[in-house]
């Protein structure tokens, strides 16, 4: 069934607004620890998740909130979990990296690469108990260097498991540019394990949706896994407070305190040749810029999908108002004290 752009946009917007609220609450100090948002990858999440139904499973990485929302998770209990409340989804035990919804067969992990084996297991259960149902593994491009994930690609082929491996390629692993640490091309890598693989522009949710639709029958018919590579950008950087992104947004505040020890260190007696040192310093100073120019190189997936809906501005305005109101209500309810 071809994707409904309205539905896709609806979920992208809901996720974006929800995560913006999460960011606000985090900045206000109401959420502890790290905070990895999925802002910027909504095109991939929505393009895939809107094809899932009863009995399909999802193995999520550290950016699990958008797929869960789009899959129909209760946003209030999700937000309460993120806030660490005992009336949250996981009674405050999990937090945003460890979200679990048995009814939706959906589980997250903060261990990079772990979604591969987890999805393989979900798919094994589908194969035995729910033929035709699939499991999706979401992960970043840098996770493609993690052994457990690589093994799971092979396992899924060997056992013909219905796993859709979805690689969200934002080009970065925290502060490391992924191509610098990755041999070959990821699409070829997936294919070499013996599964069909396709790539798609992840900022184009409708394209992701179409590609997902093209791949899923292979899985549902019991022919084994497939791989989807989708480019994206993480608009809020690796995590909130991301030093690289902050360095671009507030260069003086971030770079100045680094500068003195860095210069002192670069100029110390004993060390690499001058050329190597200056290369290192230049690299540090430009890495932030590279990260941000990469970010600017891709459109915001929301804008892009929204454009497809401009033909019906009234409906669009209505939809946006509704979603915004819903998210506001979710936040209000979530923040209420429970008796």
């Amino acid at each position, binding site marked *: 069934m071809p994707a409904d752009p309205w539905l896709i946009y609806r979920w992208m917007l809901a996720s974006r607004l929800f995560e913006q609220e999460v960011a606000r609450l985090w900045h206000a100090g109401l959420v502890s620890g790290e905070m990895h948002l999925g802002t910027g990858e909504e095109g991939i999440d929505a393009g895939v998740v809107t094809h899932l139904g009863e009995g399909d*499973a999802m*193995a999520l990485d550290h950016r699990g909130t958008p797929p869960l929302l789009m899959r129909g998770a209760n946003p209030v209990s999700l937000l309460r979990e993120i806030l660490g409340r005992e009336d*949250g*989804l*996981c*009674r*405050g*035990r*999990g937090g945003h990296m*460890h979200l*679990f919804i*048995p009814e939706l*067969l959906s*589980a997250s*992990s903060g*261990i990079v690469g*772990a979604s*591969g*084996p*987890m*999805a*393989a*297991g*979900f*798919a*094994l*259960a*589908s194969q*035995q*108990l729910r033929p035709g149902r699939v*499991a999706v593994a979401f992960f970043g491009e840098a996770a493609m260097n993690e*052994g*457990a994930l690589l*093994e*799971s690609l*092979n*396992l899924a082929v*060997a*056992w013909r498991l219905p796993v859709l491996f979805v690689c969200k390629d934002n080009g970065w692993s925290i502060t490391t540019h992924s191509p610098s640490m990755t041999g070959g091309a990821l699409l070829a890598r997936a294919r070499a394990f013996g599964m069909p693989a396709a790539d798609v522009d992840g900022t184009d949710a409708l394209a992701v949706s179409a590609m997902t639709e093209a791949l899923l029958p292979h899985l549902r018919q019991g022919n084994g896994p497939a791989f989807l590579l989708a480019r994206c950008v993480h608009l809020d950087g690796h995590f909130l407070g991301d030093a690289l992104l902050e360095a671009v947004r507030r260069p003086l505040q971030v770079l100045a305190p680094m500068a003195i020890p860095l210069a002192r260190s670069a100029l110390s007696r004993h060390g690499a040749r001058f050329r190597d040192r200056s290369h290192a310093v230049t690299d540090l100073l430009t890495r932030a810029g590279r990260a941000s120019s990469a970010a600017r190189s891709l459109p915001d997936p929301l804008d892009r999908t929204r454009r497809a809906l401009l033909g019906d501005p009234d409906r669009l305005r209505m939809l946006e108002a509704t979603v915004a109101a819903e998210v506001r209500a979710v936040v209000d309810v979530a923040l209420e004290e429970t008796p």
Partner: protein
Amino acid sequence: MSSVGFAEAIDDAIAERMAVDPAILVFGEDVQLLRRNLYARFGAERVRNAPISEAAFLGAAVGAAMAGLRPVVEIMMADFLTVAVDALVNHAAKLADFSGGSWGAPMVVRVACGGGYGDGGQHEQSLWGWLAHIPGMAVVVPSNPVDAAGLMRTALAHDGPVVFLEHKLLADNWLEALGRGGRSGLEFDVPPAGARAAHPLPANRVAFGRASVVRSGGSLTLVSLGVGVHQALEAAEALAEDGISAGVIDLRSVSPLDRGCLVEQVGQTGRVVVVDEDYLRFGLSGEIAACLLEAGLRPRFARVATEGTIPFARHLERSALPNPDRVMRACRQVLSS
């Protein structure tokens, strides 16, 4: 009289449940040959060979368990858990806590462990204390076919992850493949009462966290598990000849640990010797010491365990692993202090 071997008892317990519970799957490297009786009966869908990808298939076992199956996943040897232990430590063991109690991973990880057949330090480790350090999973170590079957039945009804360790000196198929290799005339310290039991086996479950007092004695308590239980019994026999009455506890499960039984028995004797084939430090023997102190006991204490990397050469291996001589020396020490 016909008898049942240790591994066979476990396989039979699994077959018993597989026959009635279609959610049980067995997978791991070479299981179609290793568990050929299960394979012949339940077929290639439910008894699956796996690639040498322990991290992926142990991780998949967690996912499968979460999604409605009850996998019995085999890792050939405890030593190889090191390449896959994330699936246990950060996933299986944490799921119930992380999900606020809403989700569990009922799975059994079946693993051969232990030494005594000269296979070197990467193939003879026990690691049960290491595994039990992580909260959230059960770790059981039977010392005989009856307990092995009983613990496996419990494992197959348990609602969380269970690591089921079978000692290679007890499981004849492992000893045959890895130690004997079809050769005759080789000697191994296989405890007969650990390796075989009278047929038919009792059909009961053995609860986790319930130690068994396999010999009572008033002047000293030996605490052990797996093959060590038989060494402890041997030492107790020898001590009896000197008029010393030593009791022996077979822990059977490491986690949960039967603190009550330990405290009760050691409370009576005031002297305890732990016989633990796992590494000496930061493991089971220490935990037992802490449990006793926490309970307000002040026992004489000694332990016999594996101190360093297990050497390959048989004579070196013998003195590196617990053995009846070492156990006897430790007993004399706590008796004389």
